[in-house]
């Protein structure tokens, strides 16, 4: 199952019909799950999903790309703040 997108509908039955129109009209789907947004729980904590058990936290490879990216962002912010 993949996230296809979202839609706005006044009730669950119409939501199902709209979903078929948007995400199944050309037989591109074999199954659709249509849920109210409020029913979705978003679990995105990296500590839970991707704990650093590869020990990258004690190797240069665990930091080099991150530092490069964050340094570029910090420099851009400072440049943007110049009068």
């Amino acid at each position, binding site marked *: 199952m993949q996230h296809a997108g979202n839609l706005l509908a006044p009730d669950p039955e119409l939501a199902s019909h709209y979903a078929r129109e948007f995400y199944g009209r050309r037989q591109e789907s074999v199954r659709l799950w249509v849920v109210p947004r409020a029913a979705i729980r978003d679990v995105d904590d*990296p*500590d839970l999903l991707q*704990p*650093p058990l590869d020990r990258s*936290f*004690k*190797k*240069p490879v665990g*930091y*080099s790309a*991150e*530092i490069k990216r*964050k*340094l570029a*962002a*910090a*420099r851009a*912010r*400072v440049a943007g*703040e110049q009068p």
Partner: protein
Amino acid sequence: MNDSAHVEAFYRHVASGGKVDVGEWMPDDYRTAVRRFVEMHANSELMGVLPEREWILRAPTLKRKLALTAKVQDEVGHAQLLYRVAEDLGKPREAMLADLLAGRTKFHNVFHYPTRSWADVGIIAWLVDAAAIVAQQALRESSYAPYARTMKKICWEESVHIMHGRDVVLTMVNGTSEQRAMVQEALNRWWGPLMQMHGPPTEPAKDRDLAWRIKNKDNDTLRQEFLSTYVPRIREIGLELPDPELRQDPGSGRWHYTEPDWKELYAVVTGHGPKSQERLAFRRLNYEQTRWVRETVLSEPKVAA
């Protein structure tokens, strides 16, 4: 075997870049000088874990908690390596620990100060470790070969600590204005001790550690190197240095700055820093609580009846 011809030949050897290895003959003065130097370094690694250890249980993410734990482990490992080097020069480990805990020997100034926020952890791991590595990279050329070899391993591990520290600081400065303010405030407090860390300028002619190449760069040179590398890196991310006199001479490249407070440095390293006594007391307590482990491991095996 301390006859003056032998001694003079030795000093010519080390002054011209010659190395001395463990077990080789050396004059008593040289042996003592190296041992004291390495002992203070070992003490500093052991005491240096305490400021950061305070934050293991308060780290903001699991990755940071693991990184801090690994860093503390590394530093204690460095202390063990360095006590080993110093022991070979004639002072037993127990005596070195006893002297440290009794306040008779010193450890570096920066480890006598408190940490007040998570930003302190980033500043310490980045800039305090950076200042230390400037000195430690030079020590890889020490005339005393066992110390030089140990420094190569220590420098490699410290380089990862610095990356970790820089990542913590960058994460915060890229965050909210409150996080940026927290980092700036921490930097303002740590800048003084950082500038004092390499010690006051010494007269090369009177500095035996320098003459005998136990260390190869004088304090002033180390501080200049630190400033040249790190002031630009601090400023480029929008942080300010709290010294209005800090500037680099465009011609010579030499940094000018407000003279560090050498009285503060002396008071701190002689045990009068804000956290000196509390941290030594913790070490004493820890030493007592782990006595049973030492006695068990080091005791003579008992024959079962």
